């Protein structure tokens, strides 16, 4: 069997370990593994009639090629946010370009099916978040054998308790928060730490919970800036070191405000977020007259090497996905459910992104984690 593998969406630590483990398991059983470069873009931009194009967009994987890749973060195959079902005309490869048709995104699924056929790929293992996997679901609906692996730093794919990348992101965030304490304390300031998390506030919530910060603002719950200022001043007064610390999701909104969008929208409706932390910091400075330490963690949360939990899950997901492919079971998403490795129908990704269970985990009055009755909850709480 010829098995294709690709990584899409933002890079996270653990992807290389995942690619390696799939390759080792599948080649061990005598199958051929083909790495597709730059996510779905590697198939979209592949002209199957041009051997050079095939060479540029794919790479044969075998144990010697992948031997050392698991020692670093990022993705050896590279990645993109390309969704072949919605391609902006200016992003079309030249050989697919047609005259007219307006500026609307175009659907090139037919081309993808043709490339998969020409490359002789019998099954595909895409590793990605909800957007990358939504196209995997589309291919599944078209009859392509697919087994998907969930990864996102936000841990927001439906159907699984855990996505590759989340643990390292939280570990990094907790470490940075503790490092910032010395600056915030020395200057007796209010510290605002902005974390990635567009629609899910889980990175903000869980990091705040684990690092013991005073307040956590999450994407799901709009906040009142006056009230937040009041709470932080109470926290500062109660702290013997005379500072207060808060986390905020990049997708957070003030009551009556909208999500702060920086930059322009890409073809997939994603905007480059970032900026709510700075705006919140400025507003807190004005309301309270306090000095502010504002820190946007951004890419530092997901760059670099994976921690052991992300390695563990990445490798186990890979083994499980390879086993499903070898056993001829397709249309599945590998997952963790209630602490157990399992797999679920890939159609779960149709439910969009998973968000924080606000009622169960967040104190909307006091803007902080409210974790009670842990008994019976999954390892990562929801």
């Amino acid at each position, binding site marked *: 069997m010829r098995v294709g593998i690709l990584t899409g969406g933002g890079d996270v*630590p653990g992807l290389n370990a995942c690619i390696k483990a799939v390759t080792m398991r599948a080649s061990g059983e005598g199958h051929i593994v083909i790495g597709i470069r730059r996510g779905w873009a590697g198939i979209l931009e592949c002209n199957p009639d041009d051997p050079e194009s095939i060479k540029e967009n794919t790479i044969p994987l075998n144990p010697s090629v992948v031997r050392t890749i698991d020692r*670093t973060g990022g993705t050896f195959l*590279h990645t*993109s946010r390309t969704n072949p079902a919605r391609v902006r005309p200016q992003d079309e490869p030249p050989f697919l370009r047609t005259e007219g048709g307006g500026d609307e995104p175009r659907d090139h699924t037919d081309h993808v099916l043709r490339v998969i056929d020409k490359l002789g790929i019998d099954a595909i293992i895409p590793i990605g978040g909800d957007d990358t996997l939504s196209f995997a679901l589309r291919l599944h609906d078209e009859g392509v054998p697919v087994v998907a692996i969930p990864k996102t730093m936000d841990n927001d794919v439906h159907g699984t308790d855990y996505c590759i990348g989340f643990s390292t992101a939280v570990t990094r965030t907790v470490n940075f928060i503790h*490092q910032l*304490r010395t*600056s915030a304390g020395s200057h007796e300031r209010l510290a605002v730490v902005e974390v990635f998390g567009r629609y899910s506030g889980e990175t903000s919530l869980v990091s705040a919970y684990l690092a013991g910060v005073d307040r956590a603002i999450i994407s799901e719950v709009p906040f009142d800036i006056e009230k937040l200022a009041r709470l932080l001043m109470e926290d500062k007064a109660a702290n013997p070191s005379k500072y207060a610390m808060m986390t905020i999701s990049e997708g957070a909104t003030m009551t009556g405000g909208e999500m702060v969008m920086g930059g322009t929208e890409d073809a997939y409706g994603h905007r480059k977020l970032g900026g709510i932390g700075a705006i919140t910091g400025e507003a807190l400075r004005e309301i309270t007259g306090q000095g502010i330490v504002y820190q946007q963690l951004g890419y*530092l949360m997901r*760059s670099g090497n994976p921690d052991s939990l992300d390695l563990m899950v990445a490798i186990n997901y890979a083994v499980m996905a390879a086993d499903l492919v070898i056993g001829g079971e397709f249309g599945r998403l590998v997952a963790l459910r209630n602490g157990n490795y399992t797999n679920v129908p890939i159609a779960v990704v149709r439910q969009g992104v998973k968000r924080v269970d606000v009622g169960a985990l967040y104190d909307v009055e006091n803007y902080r984690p409210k974790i009670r009755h842990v008994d019976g909850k999954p390892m990562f709480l929801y």
Partner: protein
Amino acid sequence: MKRIGVLTGGGDCPGLNAAIRAIVRTAVGLHGWEVLGFRDGWRGVMRGDVRELTVESVQGILHRGGTILGSSGANPYHEGGIERVRTTFRDLGIEGLIAIGGEGTLGAAAHMSEEGLAVVGVPKTIDNDLSGTDSCIGYHTAVQVATDAIDRLHTTAESHNRLMLVEVMGRSAGWIALAAGLAGGADMILIPERPFDVDEICAHVRRRHLRGHSFSIVVVAEGAVPVEGTFELPEYPTDERGFPRFGGIAHHLAPVLEQRTGFESRVTVLGHVQRGGAPCAEDRILATRLAIAATDLVEAGRWGQMVGVRGPDIVDVPLGEAARIRRVPEELYRVAEVFFDT
């Protein structure tokens, strides 16, 4: 009994606690003096806000970042004048003061020294830009933090074929940018000493791409400046003392580079993490050596000096000459430059 004061002023940095500990261990533990710690830099001196520092009170702080004394940007020359400082000295019966700080704190110390107050200076600033010393407390840790960040950002830059801009601290001098860029293998380094040309950066990125590199990492000091007339700098807000509050130049550069090169460009502003957290070994050792040397100056009654390091040696220089800006020398930039285009 001899009684002295100690303060930490300006931005906090890793290693301040190591310096405080070394002063107390020498002055109290060895000489049997009394040491009073002023809270929040010069503000504590003006308000007479002190506590006694005992050997017990500095236990377990060597490895901790920040400063147990607190810090502020307060400057007696801007707020109330030197008379209040004189009064505090007299009221508390202190013979003199060890001021640990950067350009602002030591500049004030130099003035006071000229007016007859007994002050000794210890240099700290992660920017590392004081003329009287080869390196300042906090700098080595900041370089390590920035280097670690650049190492990590490589994985994301590679994965996405991106141009990554990493903004580090450095208002008047590009020491952190240069050192971390050199250590982290940056593809270009922009520092205040060497005005940048956006066209040149773009050409450089394109050349790298033609040679088969799919990503570039550009390290930018927050105080980097363009060749005049080639790029519009952001308008920096000013702080309460009228100094620009730097930060954000990378956010202004990124869209311009993205548009001109066609490479997706992303920004990481390292900000406060560069000066938070535990000091590296080098900073602990430097802080300890400088602090003990400062205590020795006090013992010898040699006020008005700042301690510093020159090559392997600890030296001291007059405060008035010490607190000038020291810029990255051309030859050091040339070392880094070797790796830009090869």
